[in-house]
């Protein structure tokens, strides 16, 4: 685009620029975004489209190179989810490219575990160390001898490798964070996550989600929420225990007692049914229980009963329920504030019920089915209620009790010693050579976990490796997005895909029979060859150039369930879940009080939340650490007055699993029973910037760390007791009972 066109677009203002819908946002994004010019030479920079992997949203990015140096990361305007926009984390990804704190070579431990004495070794040596052990397991081991732990569920090449290997136990951090939600939704309508079509909603009822700061679809979702709120005049109502950015920008915020969202949702459903505001046809056609039974069941959940439990007045519950029901299309969104509880699965199902009784399922402005391309058969594990739910924390405690005896624990870009609940226990177990005989950590940084490893492998960051992805589309038109290396791997780093391929080749014959790929590119080409329309527009070269492809002529067909039904055993929405009943759980959506929360006299519930600029993988990003490098304990101002705490005092938080000390800040924006603290801070490993330490390096900025004296905060993970929902296995992040004492 030349200057004249830009002037026309930016200044001439065709009506499209007033963003009447997000389709026009596409036009705006494509016209103005995705281009960068050099500040020095004033020439356009070469851009390589790829995907961001710093959070689960997987936005489309373009890496801009000046010469062969990565100078900037921008959003890919062709990507239908993020529309050329990135959050601060994605934009700061360039900090990772030449970070002097990154691991440069494979290393092997010398001396005791965790002592920090390392010997640099060659990749050859590293492979042979691993292969000798893996071969024994492959030939004669049992399942669970090889434990593979990654941040997200492995997909693509690592997944194929693990499937071919056969005896691997797979752990991922999403099990801690999302499995309650995933299981609850899967039990109810057969999908693990839906897509909230917020851009077209007239009413957004938000339970415990903080999409103004973090979300699984952060950038794309928040842009659409704002469009919905501004152009459709959508009302946003938030139920949250603290004043998150979302709550602080909602039309109404209700500070709710922790873990009681399900009760409020049920009471609202009751009000909607009592007032005849429900979608009768939808309920009759798609619910698997008779309407009369539902009415009868819900009649117990009166707003008055909900008021007693949740602290939100019955009048408000009634009013919000009616508003929600009459402003169709409306949507109820749930978040970690709902699912990160002991009763997470139940809560989640209650909120789904609220969407379902209004027939808000897969309509414009409602809660929609995820639309993706199925890229590889093995990419997701089918959920199974029969298997005992597992997560990285549970794995550690099972190892501790010697219920599991892994031979190799391979951790790829995850940091359980820091991020697991009860992280002290994880460190203790990882240090014990009897419990974990061999610990390999493949990461870009010397994380807290890597410090305890027997062998550390430097893996290429997301900027340096390939992959392919098809996330659920927020525009409901499925797309395929390509991740391609923008840079050559840092120092001796190797992409995890290549490590897997190399391992499979060295392990030998059996494994190569079911896993034949020799490179990531080969795999991607194979995958995209299964999408004929993409092949027609050019396939691989097209994706390489544009980074993303979707069928431009496709119009989303709403109510997709009408043709094939839901992916549940009954084909309907299983409000009544036979599968839950069989396992001895409550089959209907129910509110179950959290054990121990009944009598909180003198105690508080510790709630942790993720700040908007600091994700789990961004700790050493200088631009983000500069914004968010330390955390406070937030406490209600009235309560603090009663406890005789002054603002800025250091207080001690004591839970049954440990204590920590931090300064306190007051706010009215928090429930009096709750204290809140930010996660993802307080590293004792990872890198210099993550620890708020100055270092002299090639980049003069690393010596300008001005927050050295302020410190880097504290991680609350050490006191989270590691108790999970018995159904879903997701961690009850927000149920920790603590006491506060001034020191």
């Amino acid at each position: 685009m030349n200057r004249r066109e830009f002037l026309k677009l930016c200044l001439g203002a065709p009506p499209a620029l007033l963003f009447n819908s997000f389709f026009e946002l596409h036009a705006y994004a494509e016209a103005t975004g995705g281009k960068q010019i050099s500040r020095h030479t004033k020439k356009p920079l070469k851009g390589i489209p790829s995907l961001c992997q710093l959070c689960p949203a997987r936005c489309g990015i373009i890496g801009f190179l000046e010469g062969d140096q990565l100078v900037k990361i921008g959003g890919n305007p062709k990507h239908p989810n993020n529309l050329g926009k990135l959050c601060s984390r994605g934009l700061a990804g360039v900090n990772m490219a030449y970070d002097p704190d990154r691991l440069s070579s494979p290393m092997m431990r010398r001396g005791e575990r965790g002592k920090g004495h390392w010997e640099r070794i060659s990749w050859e040596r590293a492979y042979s160390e691993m292969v000798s052990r893996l071969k024994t397991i492959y030939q004669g081991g049992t399942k669970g001898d090889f434990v593979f732990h990654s941040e997200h569920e492995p997909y693509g090449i690592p997944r194929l490798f693990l499937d071919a290997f056969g005896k691997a136990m797979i752990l991922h951090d999403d099990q801690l964070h999302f499995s309650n939600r995933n299981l609850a939704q899967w039990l109810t309508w057969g999908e693990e996550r839906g897509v909230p079509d917020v851009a077209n909603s007239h009413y957004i009822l938000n339970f415990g989600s903080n999409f103004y700061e973090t979300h699984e679809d952060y950038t794309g979702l928040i842009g659409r929420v704002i469009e919905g709120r501004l152009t459709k005049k959508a009302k946003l109502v938030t139920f949250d225990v603290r004043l998150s950015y979302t709550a602080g920008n909602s039309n109404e915020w209700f500070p709710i007692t922790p873990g009681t969202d399900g009760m409020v949702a049920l009471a609202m459903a009751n009000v909607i049914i009592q007032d005849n505001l429900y979608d009768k046809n939808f309920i009759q056609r798609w619910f698997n229980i008779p309407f009369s039974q539902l009415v009868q069941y819900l009649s117990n959940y009166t707003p008055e009963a909900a008021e007693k439990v949740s602290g939100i007045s019955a009048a408000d519950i009634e009013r919000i329920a009616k508003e929600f029901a009459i402003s169709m299309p409306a949507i109820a969104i749930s978040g970690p504030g709902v699912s990160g509880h002991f009763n997470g699965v139940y809560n989640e199902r209650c909120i789904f019920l609220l969407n379902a009784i209004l027939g808000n399922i897969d309509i414009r402005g409602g809660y929609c089915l995820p639309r993706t391309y199925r890229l590889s058969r093995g990419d997701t594990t089918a959920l199974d209620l029969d298997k005992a739910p597992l997560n990285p924390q549970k794995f550690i405690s099972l190892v501790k009790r010697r219920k599991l005896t892994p031979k190799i624990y391979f951790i790829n870009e995850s940091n359980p010693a820091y991020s697991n609940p009860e992280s002290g226990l994880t460190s203790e177990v990882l240090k014990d050579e009897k419990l974990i005989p061999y610990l390999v950590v493949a990461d870009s940084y010397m994380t807290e976990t890597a410090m305890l490893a027997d062998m550390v492998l430097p893996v290429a960051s997301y900027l340096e490796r390939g992959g392919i992805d098809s996330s659920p589309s927020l525009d409901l038109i499925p797309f395929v997005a390509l991740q391609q290396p923008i840079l050559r791997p840092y120092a001796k780093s190797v992409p995890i895909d290549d490590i897997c391929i190399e391992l499979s080749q060295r392990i030998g014959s059996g494994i190569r029979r079911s896993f034949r790929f020799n490179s990531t590119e080969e795999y991607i080409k194979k995958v995209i060859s299964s999408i004929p329309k993409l092949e027609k527009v050019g396939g691989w070269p097209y994706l390489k150039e544009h980074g993303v492809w979707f069928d431009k002529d496709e119009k989303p067909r709403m109510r997709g369930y009408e043709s094939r039904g839901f992916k549940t055993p009954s084909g309907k929405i299983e409000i009544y879940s036979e599968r839950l009943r069989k396992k001895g759980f409550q089959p209907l959506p129910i509110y179950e009080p959290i054990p121990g929360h009944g009598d909180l006299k003198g105690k508080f519930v510790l709630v942790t939340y993720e700040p908007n600029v600091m994700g789990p993988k961004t700790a050493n990003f200088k631009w983000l650490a500069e914004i968010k490098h330390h955390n406070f304990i937030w406490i209600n101002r009235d309560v603090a007055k009663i406890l005789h705490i002054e603002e800025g005092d250091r207080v001690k938080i004591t839970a049954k699993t440990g204590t920590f000390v931090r300064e306190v800040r007051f706010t009215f924006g928090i429930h009096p029973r709750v204290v809140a603290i930010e996660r993802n801070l307080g590293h004792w490993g990872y890198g210099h910037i993550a620890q708020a330490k100055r270092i002299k390096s090639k980049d003069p900025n690393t010596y300008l760390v001005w927050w050295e004296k302020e410190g880097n905060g504290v991680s609350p993970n050490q006191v989270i007791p590691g108790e999970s929902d018995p159904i879903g296995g997701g961690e009850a992040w927000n149920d920790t009972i603590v006491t506060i004492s001034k020191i």
Partner: protein
Amino acid sequence: MEVQVLYNVFHHEAVSLLIAIYFHIVGLHAGCSIVSITATLLGKTEYKPVAKIGAIFVIILFSISPIFLLTDLFQPLRFWYLFLHFNPTSPLSWGTFFLCAYPTFTGIYIYFLFKNNVKWSKIFGVISLPFAISVHGYTGFVLGFAKARVLWNTAVMPSYFLCSAMISGMAFMLIVALIRYRFTYKDKTVEEREKDLHIIDLLAKWMAGFMILNVFYVFSDITVMYYHTEDAFETVELVRLGKFSFLYIWVDNVLGNIIPSLIIIFKKTRKSHLLLLIAAILASIGVFVMRYVMVFGGQYVPLS
């Protein structure tokens, strides 16, 4: 209303301690030179020693003052750009002009003063007097034109700065005169002693006069600011009651202005050279504290 700042950035002060010191030294030598020139112009021979002492310190102080100015620059090697580019709306540009013109004329004046050429020293005294006033006066305008800060951006600022410069200059000369008298009076005749004592008396009286003027400026500045904007109110509370109240009210005004002027006003105390010396030292400290408070108190309140 409860306001809790969740995120904001922190800015470092734009005007540093070096500049506060520079302001003080410029005030000092400008004060000295104004006293010296005035003494010469009045023409009485008994004032001559004062004029000479003043002139010597002008040379010494002037030669060190630009060091502070240059080291404060982020690009010190580009200082000569100031001579190339003149911006009439910038008091720093005027300052460059004055800082060049002032030593030239004052140098000639001092030359004739030490040559005992009364006529020419008077002529060049007259010429260099406005420059001596301007060379300090411009610093008042420097702060006065920085509209961001309410403590600076007042009409009283240039004259307030000049007034305090006179105090610091006179206090300095008073100290020197007292010391000189202390070490030389034994060799002097009664008449000469009388002359010296007269000069000391005169200097002290003038200083007290400027101090009273100074207190008036402070009073009018603070009171007017109470009727000004929110920023002004906050700033004046800060210097009156807050972080800078001790320095500004007690050290600068009470110890630095009111007590010395009281010492001088009462004849009994004025006759005591020790008390006079204390008064002069207090006045010098007070003026420096005033520069410090002006520079840092002015910048203490955030702008964003």
